[in-house]
């Protein structure tokens, strides 16, 4: 599927750190749309082994701020014909996405989101408990009496996709156009002279380059330390788990901020489930029993018939969180050092549009118009892009 280059060259036009979906998508669009192919993608582990392979594969654009809605909507449109673009089946499956509201204030936020979404042409509407029950007869609409469902934001284009294949597709497409992907190659330092990037130190030798794109999710602070940039990014783990496979019964994607759960059923029949962030800073992908217990208890409130279903496996990823729940993308105070970061718990769905806009940004040394609301400068200027109301669960 990939050609594996053996030698690092001494210089590249662009070095991308991180061979996850975001980094590989940027490489792909740099080569395909900007004709920049003298590019190395450096990966300390293996392709798609970070958060690209650890998320719960949900794709949606029902955000809260105009900046967010426009950006994620562009992503959803790119997703829809990506399989054809790659000639690789991504198992892109449109399911319909419910964000449940269990309180009056949550209903109000859902109505707000629905109206912002509709204004920008995104299909979202507020629906009542009857509609939810008709869509999914197995749901306990009272949630065991603890937290009755009052309504939901229904987002028909909400989808899931096979996450590994996204990294493979972008990686293969980039490779075919001449990009080199170097796995097992860790970045140990970034050289800056006179405020400009001049090179990258790796575990396999030195590379001269004037442009570095950092797309490393939970490792972002380690890299920004290398170039001396301060950011608001903090790292908490996010865990997820899957059940044993079962016959298809769950067509839709369900998210509940109050119960801290999200759930969908994969093409293999497994229930893919997640919860909120772990409650304290940690740079590790360890799993905990607390997570499994807490998530299962809430899952049974909503779907009591799952009580005998077994959990097959669980895992964790490191989320690079920001104070306003929007990403940090674009140029930085160091010339030639570009960030695609702050993707916290919401980065998978944005993979295509991040690749496209970051490639544009790197090629033109100027932020793409879709990402100007996500610049690192916004924290210096107190002009945040508040997306917390659209986070899938109350992190």
């Amino acid at each position, binding site marked *: 599927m990939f050609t594996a280059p053996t030698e690092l060259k001494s210089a590249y036009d662009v070095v991308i750190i991180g061979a996850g979906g975001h980094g590989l998508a940027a490489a792909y669009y740099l080569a395909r749309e900007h004709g920049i192919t003298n590019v190395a993608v450096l990966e300390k582990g293996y392709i798609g082994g970070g958060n690209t392979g650890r998320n719960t594969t949900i794709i949606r654009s029902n955000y809260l701020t105009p900046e967010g809605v426009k950006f994620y909507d562009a992503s959803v449109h790119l997703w829809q014909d990506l399989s054809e673009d790659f000639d690789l089946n991504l198992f892109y499956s449109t399911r319909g996405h419910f964000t449940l509201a269990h309180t009056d204030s949550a209903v109000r936020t859902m109505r707000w989101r629905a109206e912002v979404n509709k204004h920008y042409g995104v299909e979202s509407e507020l629906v009542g408990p009857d509609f939810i029950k008709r869509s999914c007869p197995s749901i306990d609409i009272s949630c065991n009496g603890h937290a009755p469902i009052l309504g939901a934001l229904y987002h028909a284009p909400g989808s899931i996709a096979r996450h590994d294949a996204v990294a493979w597709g972008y990686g293969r497409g980039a490779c075919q156009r001449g990009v080199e992907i170097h796995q097992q190659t860790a970045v140990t330092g970034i050289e800056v002279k006179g405020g400009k990037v001049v090179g990258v130190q790796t575990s396999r030798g030195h590379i001269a380059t004037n442009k570095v794109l950092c797309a490393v999710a939970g490792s972002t*602070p380690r890299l920004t330390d290398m170039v001396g940039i301060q950011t*608001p*990014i903090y*790292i908490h783990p996010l865990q997820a788990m899957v059940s044993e496979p079962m016959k298809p019964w769950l067509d839709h994607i369900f998210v509940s901020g109050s119960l801290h759960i999200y759930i969908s059923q994969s093409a293999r029949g497994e229930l893919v489930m997640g919860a909120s962030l772990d409650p304290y*800073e940690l740079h*590790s992908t360890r799993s*905990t*029993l607390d997570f499994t217990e807490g998530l299962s208890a809430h899952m049974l409130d909503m779907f009591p018939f799952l009580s005998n279903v077994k959990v097959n496996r669980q895992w964790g990823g490191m989320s690079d969180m920001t104070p306003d729940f929007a990403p940090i993308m674009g140029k930085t105070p160091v010339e030639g050092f570009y960030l695609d970061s702050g993707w916290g718990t919401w980065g998978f769905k944005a993979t295509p549009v991040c690749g496209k806009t970051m490639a544009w940004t790197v090629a033109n040394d100027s932020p793409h118009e879709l990402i100007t609301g996500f610049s690192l400068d916004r924290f*210096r200027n*107190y002009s945040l892009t508040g997306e917390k109301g659209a986070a899938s669960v109350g992190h």
Partner: protein
Amino acid sequence: MKLLTCPVNGARPVSEFTYWGEIRPAPDANACTDHEWADYVFNRNGAPGVKREWWCHTPSNTWFIAERDTEKDRVMRTWLPGSEA
């Protein structure tokens, strides 16, 4: 289950505690520039390492300081503010 040692109540499950982030000195709000204040409000040391953090034992509202390795999730020691030798 992970245990954390509260200086007053002893070892308790970590679910009884709330994490309040790394201890950071605040600049003088009346003297500093807007940018210095923004740096204090938003920016964090997000890299892994041994950090001194505020924690609170929620049931007893005991605020204390923990020295913790944020890569290995190992707590070296905990103490009440002002009690460090």
